């Protein structure tokens, strides 16, 4: 048992280093271009580049990202353009009509994508724990330590009978009844690191607790609870990139562990997305 645990700790170290290296690589590239800039500036720049790529026509300045109505306004502008275009289409040939329709559809889809990205960035940066000190709970799963902000913790329950449901993904452990509530239990190890979960690891997992995500019906399994710690903003490397690992709010520097973005995780679980679908 002890052997298996030490083996899984080794696996976890590699896993976390992979997580961090990936991110540090991006950072290194940016530092190479402008070494004097601070991290926050480089992150802003990255977001700007991302937004520019999404739609050059949008011309979104960083200040506009915070504006509540910016996205709908853009869509309205596009809709206006669409009406003008369709007026012209009436006198043009059929071939031109189809090509214009294609362009409009592409523009619409890029607009929707841009709005979605803006929403994700806004949601990530507007979290209450993104200002000042905040408390997190650390828990262990298969040698991996995971942190969840206390403000987004819905509760902790002891593991009881979990009823599996047929046809569900492997990471969906089943439904656990708790008083009148039905908790959708997620096998955390299988969701977070399916590639590391071999038979030996699966057998060594001994789930004791269910960590409830906010006020949702989703709960993450945990082997043990570590402690609660007050962190400041400097102790976390925040990850605001919306496209990759939306469930990861950041990395706690001194514990080298993942800090969960609970809302995004709930969203992914509601969609039935495993970690592979997220990466793809």
């Amino acid at each position: 048992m002890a052997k298996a645990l030490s083996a899984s700790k080794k696996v976890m170290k590699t896993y976390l280093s992979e997580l961090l290296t990936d991110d540090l690589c991006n950072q290194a590239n940016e530092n190479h271009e402008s070494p004097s800039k601070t991290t926050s500036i480089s992150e802003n720049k990255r977001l700007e580049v991302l937004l520019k790529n999404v739609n050059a026509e949008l011309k979104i300045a960083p200040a506009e990202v915070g504006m509540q109505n910016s996205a709908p306004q853009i869509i309205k502008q596009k809709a206006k353009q669409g009406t003008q275009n369709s007026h012209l289409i009436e006198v043009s040939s059929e071939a031109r009509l189809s090509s214009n329709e294609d362009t409009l559809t592409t523009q619409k889809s890029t607009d929707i994508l841009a709005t979605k990205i803006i929403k994700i960035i806004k949601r990530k940066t507007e979290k209450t724990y993104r200002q000042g000190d905040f408390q997190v709970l650390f828990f262990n799963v298969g040698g991996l330590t995971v942190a969840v902000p206390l403000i987004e913790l819905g509760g902790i329950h002891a593991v009881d009978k979990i009823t599996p449901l047929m046809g569900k993904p492997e990471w969906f452990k089943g439904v656990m009844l708790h008083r009148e509530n039905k908790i959708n239990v997620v096998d955390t190890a299988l969701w977070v690191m399916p590639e590391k979960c071999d038979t030996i690891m699966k057998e060594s997992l001994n789930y004791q607790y269910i960590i409830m995500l906010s006020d949702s019906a989703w709960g993450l399994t945990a082997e043990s609870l570590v402690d609660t710690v007050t962190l400041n903003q400097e102790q976390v490397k925040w990850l605001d990139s919306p496209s990759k690992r939306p469930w990861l709010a950041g990395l706690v520097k001194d514990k080298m562990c993942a800090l969960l973005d609970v809302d995004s995780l709930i969203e992914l679980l509601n969609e039935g997305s495993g970690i592979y679908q997220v990466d793809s």
Partner: protein
Amino acid sequence: MSDEKSSANDKTNAKDEILQWVTFKLESESYGINVMQVQEILRYNEVAPVPGAPSYVLGIINLRGNVVTVIDTRSRFNLSPCEITDDTRIIVIESEQQIVGILVDSASEVVYLKASEIEAAPNVGNEESAQFIQGVTNREGELLILVDLDKLLSDDEWDELKQF
């Protein structure tokens, strides 16, 4: 005023209809099927295998001169096979205008459930078997999984069964 209230209550009651479910066990889980679809429950007797039958067909039985196809429910629900015991039952059901038998570990009881007591199962997983679940409910501290028998087999599979 009171008339309005009572009519509103009537409407709520009408919507919250009571349904009867036959419950059975597979492995350690409880499942329920609509009583209206159940014709009878039989003790297990020899199921004659059919050469070349699909994997979900266990075989056929002779029910008072009629041939009834028996579906291997465990394999359909992605559960490991188990031995036949004294509790094993074949529940004869009518679904998609066909009469088939489903093999279960044991048949338990008939329960009454209000429509409001039934909750949708979490909408995750796109495996075919995920569609069998009509809903879930908390029955005396135990989760009861309600099965939609019509979805137990796909249209093609129901058509295939007609040939037996």
